[in-house]
């Protein structure tokens, strides 16, 4: 566990801040709090946290306004957002937020997102071409499936499965950042190229192909390739 990392909780409600502090401290993080956007910038400068849990509905400014500043300062950002604010979530992710948690949240889910985001930051900080990073990330497993990113191979129960090129590209993109949500537009741009950001149906068909070939035996609601309606996909390795 990434103990000792400093996390800043930005929310205008003291009870929610207290709950998050309790949850995060229980998991070994150091926690600082901010009740608004201005305070958040001040706390960031004073304490240099590694990650911000940022509520977007702040009393003094829109959380989206200070998001670029936080990211520019090298913080990982996990957004706390209302249930139906799909556009807001997508906007935050496109601005560089690592992930989001929907209120009312499950503390376990918050911890999982924080862990994933910090791990992702650590990988990025390691730099491309880093041998250690390649070794750690090159083999991704979920269920009885193994994605070998170095060999560009996918195996199920030890047997190689042939995926269509775009299916593999999509799976590889998600497997490189396991547990992290990637928006539809980001996936389409990376896998299909610029100009395809609106072709969501390509994504649907590729995702369907991946599930059919790798998860035909999983029950409903059990797929590791999770779609967040209207937002994007994440590869959930912890899915049983």
């Amino acid at each position, binding site marked *: 566990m990434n103990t000792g990392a400093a996390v800043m909780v930005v929310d205008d409600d003291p009870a929610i801040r207290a709950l998050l502090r309790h949850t995060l401290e*229980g998991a070994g993080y150091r926690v600082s709090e901010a009740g608004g956007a201005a305070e958040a910038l001040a706390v960031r400068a004073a304490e240099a946290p590694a990650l911000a849990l940022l509520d977007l509905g702040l009393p003094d400014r829109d959380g989206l306004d200070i998001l670029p500043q936080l990211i520019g300062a090298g913080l990982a950002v996990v957004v706390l957002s209302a249930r139906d604010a799909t556009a807001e979530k997508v906007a935050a992710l496109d601005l560089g937020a690592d992930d989001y948690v929907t209120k*009312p*949240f499950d503390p376990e889910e918050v911890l999982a997102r924080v862990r994933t985001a910090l791990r992702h930051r650590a990988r990025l900080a390691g730099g491309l071409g880093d041998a250690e990073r390649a070794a750690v990330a090159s083999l991704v497993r979920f269920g009885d499936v193994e994605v070998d990113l170095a060999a560009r191979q996918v195996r199920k129960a030890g047997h190689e499965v042939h995926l269509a090129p775009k299916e593999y590209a999509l799976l590889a993109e998600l497997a490189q950042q396991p547990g992290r949500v990637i928006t539809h537009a980001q996936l389409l741009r990376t896998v299909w190229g610029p100009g395809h950001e609106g072709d969501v*149906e390509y994504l649907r068909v590729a995702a369907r192909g991946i599930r*059919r070939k790798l998860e035909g035996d999983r029950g*409903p609601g059990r797929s590791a390739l999770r779609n967040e*309606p209207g937002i994007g996909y994440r590869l959930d390795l912890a899915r049983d």
Partner: protein
Amino acid sequence: MTPAPPPRPTLPSAEQAGGADALRGGLVSGLIATLALLGLATLAGLALAERGDVAPIALLYLGPVMFAAIRLGLRPGLGAGLLSSLVYTYFFIPPRLTLLVADPAQLITLVVLLGVALGGSHMAKRLHEQARLAEARAGRDALLAGFAGSLMAVTRAEALWAFLATEIARVFDVRVLVLAPDEGGALALVAAEPAQERADLLEMAAAQWCFDGGRATGPGGQVPTASEWLFVPVPGRGGPLAVVGVGHPEAAMPLHGPQLPLLESLLAQTGLALSRMVLEEQAHALDRVQERERLRSALLSSIGHDLRTPLTTVLGTLRALQPLSADQATALSSARAEAERLDRFVANLIDMVRIETGAIERAAEAVDLAEACDAALDHFAPSLLRGRVTLAVADDLPLVMADPRLLHHCLINLIDNADRHGGPDGTIAIEGLALADGGVELAVCDQGPGVPADERERIFGLFARIEGTDRTGGTGLGLAIVKGFADAMGVAVEAGERQGGGARFVLRFPAGLVRAVPLRGVSA
């Protein structure tokens, strides 16, 4: 509110028509008065002549001549002048008691008398004319002012048409038709005085002509027609707003003299009043929209923030707590379940407010129904799913265009509904089918008691529950939200019967929302 009738003003037409009789009565009495004055002047002259005082006698005759010229006009004035000359010549100019004039200088007196008659009558005529015009203008102004005042009190177009018909009929003593364009733009009779159901074809054609040309059309107007009716447009900014027809059963010309300009003035005012009404109506509509908008955002933010923020804390805390004993574990799990129910209810309430206030934002996106069902099932606790839910969606089921968020909440509510009504051990079957008509349907089936045939419409209503079947868990909002969201997406939703017993709720995507699977984008 009915407008008060305007004061009855004097009209030019009434002044002219009734004025002739008054004038005739005045002529006779005026002539008698003139003759009497003439007699008096002669008697006074004779008295003066007795005393040998002849010089001022001619002046005495100025009285009757001026009187006749001013009161009775040019011809009676000249007549009085001539008569005065003759009488004066006869009685007072030597040789007396003859009509002979011995001294030519005396002729000057005669010419002066006639000249006074001419000048006096001319002056009087102009005065008469001015007085008559002033009176007519005053009558017209009073009429227009009264009309404008009454118009202000009319607030609806229908009331305006009726008011226009009766007023014009009363003021001009004519029959009136009022025609205005309906929603489709075709002219239709909207008021008539005396009342009639419809206008003849000839009149309709003339009215249309007037409406299209924007000019007075018919006898007395700028454009001649075959109809006996005169049609005059009600002017508006972008062309005529309506057409008013006037007709008279006896006269060939429904209006005469200055009546047409007067009618046109009245109709110009009517046009202004109509524009005002339209503006007021728009302002009112805007007010209502803004008020509703304000209420909606107040409600949404109040429920969304003030209710959900504490719920987030409560729910989060309950989820984070670690029970120390079996009793605590039971209590904690039931508290958690209740808090989750409350949260679901609040979420549904917000959704319902959105539906009821028309504040649903839609974004269509290609959706894989199997994937959408997965995401919806993800929302539920794993214990619900284990072994109880089956998902049967063909691999080649086409994609559908839907708002992913609205569809997500539809599915959550349908699954929740199946869970609560299907019995603790009943299975939930979700099926996706391509239909013969090119549409796609997604069905959520349970093994509960089902929905009676006569309840299948009502069950989608707000707070609808089937009597005696649902005492636990339901909010009465779930299916209403499914219906509201499905409607917003153009998706049909209905309740049916599952084969072998139970309810079957169907979302039916019409062919227009179905997208074929694009294979080239994936294998390339």
